């Protein structure tokens, strides 16, 4: 599964349905489901933490990275034009297009609270939806 940045905010800032986000995180560890995040998510999350003056949150995030609870997924040279195509085709910002593209390319479920993905042909769930799926 691929985590959108808003799921990280939910986990670390206790936002939205954070209990489900934590439950999903624990589930993934328990059942060895790999949680992928992309490099831009790290930049975006770090900027969000600074914006909210929550630098300590970055230390916590780092601990989970070190424990390999998250795995990084990156882009190659040929991916960028495809991301731009997603931006145009679905009228998404770069961040969203990137997540949609990576989820589609690697056939992963995208975990997000963002309703913008409803108009995109990519498998996506909120944490609660994913957990209910069984």
């Amino acid at each position, binding site marked *: 599964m691929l985590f959108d940045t808003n799921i990280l905010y939910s986990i670390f*800032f206790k*936002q939205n349905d954070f209990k489900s986000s934590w439950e999903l995180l624990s589930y993934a560890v*328990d059942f060895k489901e790999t949680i992928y995040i992309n490099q831009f998510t790290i930049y975006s999350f770090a900027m969000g933490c600074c914006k909210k003056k929550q630098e300590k949150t970055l230390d916590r995030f780092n601990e*989970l990275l070190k*424990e390999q609870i998250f795995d990084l997924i990156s882009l190659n040279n040929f991916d960028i034009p495809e991301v731009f195509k997603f931006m145009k085709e679905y009228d998404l910002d770069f961040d969203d297009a990137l997540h949609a593209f990576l989820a589609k390319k690697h056939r992963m479920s995208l975990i997000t609270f963002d309703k913008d993905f409803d108009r995109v042909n990519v498998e996506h769930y909120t944490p609660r939806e994913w957990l209910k799926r069984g």
Partner: protein
Amino acid sequence: MPQILIENKRPKVRRVLFSLQPVTVERFYNAVPERERSKTVNQIIDEYLNEENREKAEKIKILKKIWNEVDVEIGNEFENEDPVRLQKEVWEDVMKKYF
């Protein structure tokens, strides 16, 4: 592939089996002295599973620690904020700053 491994009904062991290539299992099996084979293979699988469980337990311990920190330090400070909105705001800030 060694029969003893195939016959093992424990779900976790079956998962270990299928995660290994047949050639690897064969090589691994043949490297064990014949008279000890069945016992040793099972022991090694158990050790593998114990190691896996130890890693998992460690990760769960870290998760609990982080959750406690988040729960105490963050409290309800951001509970009414939307994480999707925050995500979009960050990108808007970047766009304003650099473009």
